């Protein structure tokens, strides 16, 4: 597993499986909440999106990502683990570009904290996208 919050290309099913095993040995965690963001083949001005090309301000993104995790952990006391990765580069329609996993003792905090992590990423992570047709 790499230590970066950014991965080149799509977040593959294999990587998702690996990420989901993190914290498997934590028998005090009763709840796991996961969010995956996928590229949609939206139609824009009559043309279908076939992929998105993501770019990031890498150094800042890594700092912001670590800060997001600290914020979420301190806001939700029952949370045990917060994991997320975001793609850079080309991600095709149907592929995953964002993966978040939060574990907690009970279900409320895992679900709320996962959602909160998503909103913090949308607001604060310096990432941009460009449609490819």
């Amino acid at each position, binding site marked *: 597993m790499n230590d970066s919050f950014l991965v080149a290309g799509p977040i593959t099913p294999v990587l998702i499986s690996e990420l989901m095993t993190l914290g498997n040995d934590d028998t005090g965690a009763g709840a796991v909440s996961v969010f995956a963001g996928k590229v949609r083949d939206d139609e824009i001005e009559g043309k279908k999106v076939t992929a998105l090309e993501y*770019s990031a*301000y890498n150094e*800042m993104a890594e700092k912001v990502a670590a800060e997001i995790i600290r914020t979420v952990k301190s806001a939700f006391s029952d949370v045990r683990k917060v994991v997320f990765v*975001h793609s850079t580069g080309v991600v095709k329609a149907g592929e995953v570009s*964002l993966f978040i996993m939060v574990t907690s003792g009970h279900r409320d905090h895992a679900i709320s904290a996962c959602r909160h992590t998503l909103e913090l*990423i*949308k607001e*604060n992570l*310096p990432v*941009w996208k460009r449609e490819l047709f």
Partner: protein
Amino acid sequence: MKNVVRVLWFGVAQEITGSAEEEFMAEDTAVLRLQILERHPGMRTVNFRLALNGTMLKKDGQLEENDVIAVLPPFAGG
């Protein structure tokens, strides 16, 4: 006093300016904003923020020699 600073373009700013980074000479970030809009009028339509040395700028202030300013269009992660 004017200092040489590196300006990094991201997202649509890279497409508008046609490059990844440029040098500017400015004493503070308020002046730098004006210089950016003068040199690249296309940036007037972009609601951008600035980061100074990798941290989001909270308010305008002095620039030091070799400071790195990132020009950040609205984020679009997720």
